[in-house]
């Protein structure tokens, strides 16, 4: 893990250098347009497919719908299941983000600023978590959650998610805390502040960028997660949307127009938030790589 590079900033175009000559421009725009089409056509046809009838989907999967079937989308938007699943996902992700931030910031503060016996060893202990995916221990994890009586509860999903996110989050927080200017400490300790007051009133207010980064990583991870809820939840009323989408497909297996509308509506929040906050999201999701 290198510790130096700044967050990836995709919004800034490269500076310096001369502007391109015409042949270069043609080559660039042609290649980029073809690639963009490969990315965007599946997404756009999915959204448009939701406006078609099944018959039209079969004859005309690419084009605009001849007769816009708004009721495909309307039926889902006015159904309880869509909002319930979105709510479940939001609740699970919210709890995961809050606990991840609280626990990892506190632990990272101890690692960054307090000298204690075994500090290095303990940090490495947490970093073991970076090396393997939750799937490797999924069966013992299931049994543990069952024995704790947390099966089919939100906590049964949230707690393992937080636990598996701790390694990366602690690492990111610790690197950030260590780079805060040490004069702050000297000043605070001269004024008689203890570690805990220092953490609360000086470190945290200065840590907004890293809180955003860790928050985004853990939110996106939880919002998109599938295997943990799949194994820990039984009742459909608690399903987050990735599970809900699979159930929906199982129910309407050949009504592709409905499934496409459902997919579109479930990924719509992600797409909107991504374009609204792209700078933060790209910096956040690639932070694990550059920090």
């Amino acid at each position: 893990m290198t510790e130096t590079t700044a967050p990836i900033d995709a919004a800034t175009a490269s500076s310096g250098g001369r502007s391109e000559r015409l042949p270069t421009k043609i080559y660039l725009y042609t290649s980029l347009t073809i690639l963009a089409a490969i990315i965007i056509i599946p997404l756009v046809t999915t959204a448009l497919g939701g406006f078609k009838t099944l018959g039209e989907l079969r004859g005309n999967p690419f084009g605009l719908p001849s007769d816009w079937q708004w009721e495909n989308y309307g039926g889902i938007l006015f159904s309880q299941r869509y909002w319930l699943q979105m709510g479940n996902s939001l609740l699970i992700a919210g709890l995961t983000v809050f606990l991840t931030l609280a626990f990892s910031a506190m632990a990272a503060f101890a690692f960054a600023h307090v000298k204690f016996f075994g500090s290095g060893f303990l940090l490495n202990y947490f970093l073991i978590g970076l090396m393997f995916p939750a799937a490797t221990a999924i069966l013992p994890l299931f049994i543990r959650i069952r024995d704790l009586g947390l099966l089919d509860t939100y906590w049964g999903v949230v707690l393992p998610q937080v636990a598996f996110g701790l390694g990366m989050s602690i690492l990111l927080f610790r690197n950030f805390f260590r780079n805060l200017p040490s004069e702050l400490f000297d000043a605070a300790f001269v004024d008689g502040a203890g570690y805990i007051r220092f953490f609360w009133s000086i470190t945290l207010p200065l840590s907004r960028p890293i809180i955003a980064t860790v928050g985004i990583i853990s939110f996106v991870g939880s919002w998109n997660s599938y295997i943990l809820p799949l194994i820990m939840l039984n009742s459909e009323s608690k399903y987050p949307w990735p599970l809900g989408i699979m159930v929906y497909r199982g129910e309407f297996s050949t009504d592709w127009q409905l499934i496409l509308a459902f997919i579109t509506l479930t990924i719509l929040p992600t797409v909107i938030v991504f374009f609204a906050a792209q700078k933060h999201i790209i910096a956040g999701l690639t932070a694990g790589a550059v920090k």
Partner: protein
Amino acid sequence: MSQTSSISAPRALSARTPAIARRKSNRVRGTWPVLVLFLPPALLLFTVFVILPMGEAAWYSFYNWNGYGLPTQWIGTKNYELIFNNGAFRQALINNGLIILVSIVIQIPLALWIATMVTHRIKGAVMFRLLFFLPYVLADVAAGMIWRFVYDGQFGLVAGIFNAMGMSAPFWLADRQVAFYAVLGVIVWKYFGFHMMLFVAGLQSIDKSVLEAADIDGATGWQKFYRVTLPMLGSTVRLSVFFAVIGSLQLFDMIMPLTGGGPSNATQTLVTFLYSFGVMRMQVGFGSAVGVVLFVICVVLAFSYKRIFMKND
């Protein structure tokens, strides 16, 4: 970088005590509350839900156990023998290997090529970057579902193209020979944007004056790329490969909506194998053994890769 100096910051009250004693007492008094309050929540959660389950997986893997009561039926290494004699598991291993191969041979060069294009000074470069990163942000399940539609032999886009050319549409995901290649396509579609972003960052950090010097020396575009840019991106390439390898070992979410591991196990990965043979059948011992094998593969690959390729990064 250590903060020891601040910890021993002088206090007016203890000014008369010898420096060393003062430092010590200060540290002890200030340290315990923060350690006792700040470390245990993370430590407890991590131990209970990450470390213990991993240890238990190793333990359960020597039993034949359905998950109820206590594991009593010790069968030694039988589970491991069963795994390595299982055709679906071998297929899963091959498939994971193929994913790694495609990531290194196709995905990363593609991502690098695209990164070199979107770092040119042209209008819309930033928009292209965002667009290429978008699939990475989408959930694997949603991406899998979208591509299941794309590949659908009746209603999908592939069917549309074949029909338009007057041919009968193939059912790629239902074809043993082709299904996994179709899955590989989706993997590249979904993940190249992440690697592209890493390369964009790497390219932006290259000092422009080096490239200008090469210009003055009369280097062609390709020479500049091959002799200057690529060597300077070394650490980014190594990092990118590392993420591709680790990521490919975890692949599960995308396979489930696409094929669920079928047809006849042709598209199993290690994790879908663990799910369909361990979790679905509640074979805790067998499934745990698969988990242990996956764990060992992850750790060995991560360690040896870092040892060999990332020594200096």
